[in-house]
């Protein structure tokens, strides 16, 4: 029996580029980016070391979304991004409520970002004297209902499931920067195992708050360089100095090909395989030899029944951190070593255009990989003017590349040393 074919039939994205994937795709092909000067609320820019980010401009939000009943709910910013992206993906896929009743919802929404004012409410006025329970309950009631202190981490998945009236599995993935990829990979596996025949999967995140950005800075993950301005995110470049945080969300509709064709949907691309792995190296740094990344890509290819030589494109994790980009390059050269296939591969890093969306990152990157398979066009890696000697692949520098893409991998790696890779293929109609 031939394996179940699983296709992407709907996509939705919220990034610094706006509130839908179509303009994101066009702007990225045109070589634009959405990294801007940024400062935390209530703090002078000169007093804070991180000066750039890729925020979502809420003023660009379409009016019809603001009129939706779900918009009136108390939701964190990340949950709103995810809800918009999922709503868009479902509309894009042309799915009716009836067709969504048994849908699985898998989402990743990262670690909660607390509001300082809310955290203060948990403290006694006098440190030597603890507040009473009555005071605490009063303070709990004062917590901003849009704050993460009020909301459980699986809120996004639940909001989407309730919004579409799904009675299917509702799963909240929490695997840091690999979260959305893992959600999509798990959705793919659930459909293939026959547990569901349609899934809404992706993620949303926003770390653009004072305490989370500070923590990223103190960890040495985020770049505080000033000299490059908005061209600070430079994956694989000699002068790369850390990640540039973004925010947003992305969701896709995955379903069996049989079901998609039966309802007249047109697939964007096909999901072929999924792999995950652990580095077991360090909590804060990737294995410099990229062994975990090799395992994840290898697992995705094995799962898809593909050989490395069949891969045309890798949508890299490409964070613009000194460690990741060198390790990922080495991993690619290790896995695609036969006949030096790595020299023929295209590699691209979307974070140079919309920053690092943390838990959500894998979702728009997966969509862009699917679109590359559909259109044979690959978005560029920006700001790669002086390639690191350890980074010697074809990274599609500066300009979009037009080349046939039959098979591609989309990589996402996370803090804590976990790695995921999704294998995608150009959609081909079934033979009669």
């Amino acid at each position, binding site marked *: 029996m031939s394996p179940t074919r699983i296709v992407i039939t709907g996509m939705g994205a919220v990034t610094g580029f706006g509130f839908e994937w179509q303009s994101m795709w066009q702007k990225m092909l045109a070589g634009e980016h959405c990294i801007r000067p940024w400062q935390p609320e209530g*703090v002078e820019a000169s007093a804070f070391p991180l000066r750039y980010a890729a925020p979502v401009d809420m003023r660009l939000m379409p009016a019809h979304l603001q009129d939706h009943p779900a918009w009136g709910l108390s939701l964190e910013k990340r949950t709103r991004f995810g809800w918009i992206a999922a709503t868009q993906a479902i509309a894009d896929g042309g799915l009716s409520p009836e067709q969504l009743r048994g849908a699985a919802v898998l989402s990743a929404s990262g670690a909660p970002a607390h509001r*300082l004012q809310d955290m*203060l409410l948990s403290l006694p006025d006098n440190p030597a004297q603890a507040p009473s*329970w009555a005071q605490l309950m009063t303070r709990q009631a004062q917590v901003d209902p849009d704050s993460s202190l009020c909301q459980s981490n*699986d809120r996004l998945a639940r909001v989407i499931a309730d919004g579409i009236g799904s009675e299917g599995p509702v799963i909240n993935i929490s695997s840091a920067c690999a979260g959305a990829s893992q959600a999509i990979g798990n959705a793919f596996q659930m459909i293939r195992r026959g547990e569901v025949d349609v899934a809404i999967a992706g993620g949303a995140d926003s770390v653009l708050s004072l305490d989370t950005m500070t*923590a990223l800075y103190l*960890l040495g993950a985020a770049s505080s360089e000033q000299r490059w301005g908005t061209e600070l995110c430079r994956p694989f470049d000699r002068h790369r100095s850390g990640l540039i945080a973004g925010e947003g969300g992305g969701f896709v509709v995955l379903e069996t090909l049989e079901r998609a064709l039966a309802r007249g949907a047109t697939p964007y691309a096909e999901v072929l395989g999924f792999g995950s792995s*652990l580095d077991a190296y360090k909590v804060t740094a990737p294995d410099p030899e990229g062994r975990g990344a090799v395992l994840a890509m290898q697992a995705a290819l094995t799962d898809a029944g593909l050989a490395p030589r069949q891969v045309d494109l890798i949508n890299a994790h490409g964070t613009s951190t000194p460690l990741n980009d060198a390790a990922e390059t080495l991993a690619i050269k290790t896995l695609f070593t036969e006949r030096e296939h790595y020299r023929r591969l295209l590699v691209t890093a979307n974070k140079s255009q919309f920053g690092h969306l943390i838990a959500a990152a894998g979702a728009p990157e997966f969509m862009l990989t699917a679109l590359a398979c559909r259109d044979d066009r690959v978005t560029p890696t920006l700001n790669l003017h002086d390639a690191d000697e350890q980074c010697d692949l074809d990274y599609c520098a500066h300009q979009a590349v037009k080349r046939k893409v039959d098979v591609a991998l989309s990589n996402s790696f996370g803090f804590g040393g976990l790695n995921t890779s999704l294998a995608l293929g150009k959609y081909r109609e079934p033979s009669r």
Partner: protein
Amino acid sequence: MKKTVAIAGAGCVLPSGWGVESFWAAANEGRSAITALNTRRFHSERVVAFGQIQDQDHQRSRQDLAQNLQRYCTPAVIWGVSAVRQALDEAGLTGEQPGVRFGLYCCQGGYTHPSLESYAELLHGCRQDGVADMAAFAKRILQDRAQDPFLVLKGLSNCLLGVTSLALKLVGECNAYMQGVAGNLAALREATAALQAGRIDAAIIVGAGSELDTLALSGLVQAGVISANGSDTLLPFDLRGIGGIAGEGAAALVLRRREDLPAGPQTCLADMTAHAILARLSLPDRPTDVLVCSGTGDPHKDRELCQTLARTGASHITSGLAINGILSAAPSLVDLILARGALQAQQVPPIAGLQQPVANLPFVQGAPHPASLAHCLVLNRDDNGFSAAFQLFYSAEVPQD
């Protein structure tokens, strides 16, 4: 045909103590480990009890994790690693076992972020007339380095996954969830599928979490999960129950293909089902010998739950909820450990404290009940509206898959 999967090892760090034996002993004695809530951050006459990990069990757990890794961890992550080590010991495995491919599937509780206590001193320093002074906060953390640089790692919802993989040198496939029953179900389902597909040879499933945090606890009160009426006893399925009490802890299971385990009795996972609506949860056709169901401690909710329990045709019903409190991260894992204990001992522990059942069902009361037990059902209701059922069977035979 799908390969049968069995529980090869289990471990836990719970209010009842360190290790499965402590939990099993408390269950059989009907002894609750819920104690007076011990926190210096607030005082209350309304929320007075908590299922709290004892300091000696925390210290024992710390011995299972290298000192240099502990700086990344919340206490719950340390308990999780310890639970995994126990489970691997029982399964006769180490993380770097030659020829064994591992998968690691983690579940963290909804409140495993670092306690707000860790921010307390810093926050006090930047409060101005009751309002957060953002500039002062920025100055203190940037110039004075007043914030723990590892706070963001401790706050990561995959911290348990990262630290466990490092501690045990695990490099195989993985996933991390942050959800109660649904997270446990997803982890067990994924682990089982990976074993059945032959991608891995041993699956580690671990859940760890704690709600011992002031606003988290008051949030649980507002959500109706725990009560704020001064109750110090959790009484599931009892008419005298007056609400839930939260607990903390960790539990881990190691699953393997039944055919890879030695001959002899093994506890096997037969099926797992879930549904957003409890009443529509798919249950086995045949009556079960023993049913493990946590309950809530709220007689009204428990009576409603009993309508579903009645459908199982169970000969015996028990619950471990009163022993440890309501656990956020490992509810199903702890119930599966209890179920496995019952199947292995051929004995059903009583529901601690139960005197006036909310329904006329075969709840085990008073003392452990010896019985011939082959099939077990674990039924979990999630207050987020997601319920799950796990079927177990106990057999000396290696099934012909």
